[in-house]
């Protein structure tokens, strides 16, 4: 199906809705002050801002803090507009209301080429699509933290809310003192007049709540004193003194503990079990059957006096397990299926430009190859670093693969739940509080209004905590605990073997080069399971549909490239392997950038062009990409000679609205690549906090390096073979590179920083390995292939 047909049919289906919606004004996200639950003299000015009697300010915090620093970044927006020191702004968890929903994340899921969204280039299809999705997202108000969208989403909601609050406070003072607003000053939480009148926010708030704002314009960037500075993060001190409360740290009077043993085969279940040996263990209280909730595998929960007691019981359980009824998964078979699909199926074309011959990409099934071999169709067509390689008009082919990956958040899956009659309360490290509440209500069979969600800090998210399987399990266990709260905590083994994995993908790529050594055509087809339809089915049922529509998150990173090749075709084949998959930091970009930028590096070599120069040639009408590329190259000293034994590579990739280029410098130690330095340039629009941005670049590089070197989840006879960090290695301090961050100055609204530095790392590293060793790696992970 062509993209145009899909969009038009989607538009016509929604046409009737459009007529009704079009007439209604855009839903305001200002919100009712009651949402902030003011108490003890606090005064709420909207659903976002309340003022304490001492004049300090509280921001309703709708997003989850999992290390990305948004609790501070969003508080900075408020502090700036209200001219307050950052310490005078604190946050409280936002309630459940659609004003707290994430709009930017859903608009970001649209399958448009970023160029089509640029000012001056925006087509009607893009405008209509973005309007429709934004409206839908505002109406539904799904509160989710993900997609590197928190700052972007807050930009036109929290800043105006704070600006309106400022206007109300100024207006209140003006009315009270009968003095013109223009003569009033605002600094350090105090409104004052040269005549000597002054009042702090706490004294004005009561009046302000009933005063229309005297002003409501957000501050221009040139007047910022806090935004744009490396302000210290508000959550750092607690985390340094061991006082930060993660989900696992929830402690309640009378709380019990529970752990799980799920069927080792994904999709399996307990066949027969004897709880006797478990219950005989000291401190073990109960054994509970767990159905397959929210896409998770069925199993058994054991309740005990502590986690350790529950775990002793769990290990003592006598269980015989059955495999998945439809047959157990196997990743070697899956990879063959993916490669066959990439080669032989047409898929959905996400991007087309010019003319691409239908037979450019391979369409014949190929002989079976092993999942980890580094082979390509047409290896002979790509010379390995030799000058005087093939010339004249020619085509180049390659095949790439990427494996399943686990999230491996350091805090294992957990949720604390208490069910008392028809009331449910949960304490969860969740990225989706309302989805969690709805899931809890369903499991307990209570009205949604009877469910209270407490969002804790998250010991890592990376997309894993967009799922609600562990929430459902905790509620089910709590239903059997006589009204006592119970903390359900998974072992690391259960966490690694029962994840929602980054899906494996296989891709075939081809390019045509003309007699002038110019790349005229680029075609890519990748195959892998869709994520979004499965995620909707697991928790956001209102968006689930009987047939899967093309999933942009599977193709992102392939169809949205900035290069001006005359003819382009990028397609994605949605396979149905069925291994549970979910959103993994940078999602489709995590594998597609490896495929696309890896191939770009091959084309540069094939045309005997320097990797930076090659990209410059084809970055036509892409000034932002060019600026990022040039900044990284300049800061890394690209082109200057390297110390003998060192090599470097580069990659450029756009994701989540931001553009990142990385230069990776390596040596080879005992056969394994050692990364010494990564120079990272980013255009993320206006920088809210450059220190937090640098942290996210550093974080993403280490995360991506772990995956590129080591990451692989293998399933045999339905069971995930990797169980703990001894089998799923992580990059540690000794092998962590120095990451240097350079931010392009910009006046555009902020775009993502949590994920965009993940995708370019693998292809930049592959480029460096090729430069140093002559060996092209087209499959991840690299370490098993090099050592």
């Amino acid at each position, binding site marked *: 199906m062509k993209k145009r047909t899909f969009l038009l049919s989607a538009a016509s289906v929604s046409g009737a809705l459009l007529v009704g919606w079009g007439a209604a004004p855009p839903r305001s996200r200002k919100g009712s002050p009651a949402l902030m639950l003011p108490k003890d003299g606090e005064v709420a000015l909207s659903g976002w801002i309340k003022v304490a009697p001492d004049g300090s300010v509280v921001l309703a915090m709708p997003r989850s803090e999992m*290390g990305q620093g948004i609790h501070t970044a969003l508080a900075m927006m408020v502090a700036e507009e209200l001219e307050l020191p950052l310490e005078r702004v604190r946050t409280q968890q936002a309630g459940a209301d659609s004003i707290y929903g994430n709009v930017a994340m859903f608009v970001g899921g649209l399958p448009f080429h970023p160029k089509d969204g640029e000012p001056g280039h925006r087509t009607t299809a893009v405008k209509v699509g973005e309007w429709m999705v934004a409206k839908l997202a505002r109406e539904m108000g799904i509160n989710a933290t993900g997609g590197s969208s928190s700052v972007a989403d807050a930009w036109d909601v929290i800043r105006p809310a704070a600006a309106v609050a400022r206007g109300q406070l100024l207006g209140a003072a003006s009315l009270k003192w009968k003095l013109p607003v223009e003569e009033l000053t605002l600094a350090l939480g105090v409104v004052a007049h040269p005549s000597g009148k002054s009042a702090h926010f706490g004294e004005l708030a009561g009046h302000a709540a009933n005063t229309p704002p005297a002003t409501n314009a957000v501050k221009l960037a040139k007047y910022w004193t806090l935004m744009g500075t490396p302000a210290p993060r508000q959550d750092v001190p607690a985390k340094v003194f*061991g006082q930060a409360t993660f989900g696992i740290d929830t402690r309640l009077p009378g709380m019990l503990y529970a752990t799980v043993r799920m069927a080792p085969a994904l999709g399996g279940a307990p066949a027969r079990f004897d709880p006797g040996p478990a219950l005989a263990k000291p401190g073990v209280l109960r054994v509970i059957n767990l159905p397959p909730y929210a896409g998770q595998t069925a199993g058994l929960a054991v309740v005990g006096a502590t986690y350790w007691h529950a775990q002793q019981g769990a290990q003592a359980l006598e269980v015989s397990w059955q495999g998945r009824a439809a047959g157990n998964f196997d990743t070697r078979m899956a990879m063959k299926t993916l490669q066959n699909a990439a080669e032989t199926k047409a898929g959905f074309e996400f991007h087309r430009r010019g003319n691409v011959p239908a037979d450019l990409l391979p369409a014949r099934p190929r002989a079976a190859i092993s999942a980890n071999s580094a082979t390509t169709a047409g290896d002979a067509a790509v010379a390995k670093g030799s000058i005087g390689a093939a010339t004249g008009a020619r085509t180049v082919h390659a095949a790439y693969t990427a494996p399943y990956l686990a999230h491996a958040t350091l*805090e294992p899956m957990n949720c604390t739940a208490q069910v008392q009659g028809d009331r449910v309360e949960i304490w969860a490290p969740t990225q989706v509080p309302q989805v969690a509440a709805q899931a809890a209500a369903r499991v307990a069979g209570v009205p949604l209004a009877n469910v209270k969600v407490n969002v804790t800090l998250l010991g890592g998210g990376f997309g894993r905590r967009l799922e609600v399987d562990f929430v459902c399990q905790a509620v089910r266990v709590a239903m059997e605990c006589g009204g006592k709260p119970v903390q359900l905590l998974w072992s690391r083994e259960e966490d690694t073997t029962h994840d929602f994995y980054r899906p494996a993908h296989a891709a075939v790529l081809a390019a045509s080069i003309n007699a002038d050594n110019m790349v005229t055509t680029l075609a890519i087809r990748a195959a892998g399971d869709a994520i979004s339809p499965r995620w909707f089915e697991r928790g956001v049922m209102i968006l689930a549909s009987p047939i899967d529509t093309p999933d942009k998150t599977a193709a992102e990173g392939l169809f949205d490239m900035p290069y001006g090749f005359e003819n382009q075709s990028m397609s994605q084949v949605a396979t149905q392997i069925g291994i549970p998959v979910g959103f993994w930091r940078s999602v489709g970009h995590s594998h597609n950038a490896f495929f696309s930028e890896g191939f770009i590096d091959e084309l540069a070599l094939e045309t005997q062009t320097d990797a930076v120069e090659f990209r410059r040639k084809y970055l036509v009408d892409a000034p932002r990409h060019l600026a990022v590329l040039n900044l990284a190259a300049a800061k890394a000293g690209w082109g200057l000679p390297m110390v003998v034994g060192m090599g470097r590579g580069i990659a450029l990739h756009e994701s989540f609205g931001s553009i990142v280029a990385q230069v990776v410098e390596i040596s080879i130690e005992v056969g394994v690549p050692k990364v010494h330095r990564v120079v990272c340039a980013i255009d993320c629009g206006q920088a809210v906090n450059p*220190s937090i941005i640098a*942290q996210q670049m550093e974080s993403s590089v280490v*995360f991506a390096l772990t995956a590129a070197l080591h990451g692989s989840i293998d399933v045999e006879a339905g069971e995930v073979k990797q169980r703990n960090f001894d089998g799923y290695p992580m990059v*540690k*301090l000794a092998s962590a590179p120095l990451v*240097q961050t350079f931010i392009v100055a910009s006046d555009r609204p902020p775009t993502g920083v949590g994920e965009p530095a993940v995708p370019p790392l693998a292809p930049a590293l592959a480029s460096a390995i090729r430069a140093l060793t002559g060996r092209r790696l087209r499959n991840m992970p690299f370490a098993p292939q090099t050592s």
Partner: protein
Amino acid sequence: MQLNINGQGIHAKVDPAMPLLWVLRDVLNMTGTKFGCGIAACGACTVRIDGLATRTCVTPVGSVVGKRIQTIEGLGTPSAPSKLQAAWIAEQVPQCGYCQSGMLMAAAVLLDQTPKPTDAQIDAAMTNICRCGTYQRVRRAIKRASGQSLDPVLGAGASA
């Protein structure tokens, strides 16, 4: 049994086989020490016992009776931070923060044993896993706390 934790005598009625990690977290409600893997692979559960960095998820509580145990709660407080914790804040080390208690305890032991560690000594001692990749700031904070000079940070500022 009698345990000596952060200079205080604490009486706990627990199975001697129970790992110290769970005694701390689930019996004493001292949740600063974290659980990450249960096989001493990640270091999130690190405390100091008689001066040595110890991974408590594999340390039976019976084996530490009579020993001096220091947890993150005993390393320093907001009003009296250790030099390491002050350096951690200055370098803005934590992101999610989950590994940081163990990381700090391991660093505290390192500095006790090697007051001015070299990069190689830091590499060898700091084997804790940080999934958020704070490693380069951990290194800087250790050097800062030990009074060693730091290379200027190129690119966006790393310290506040």
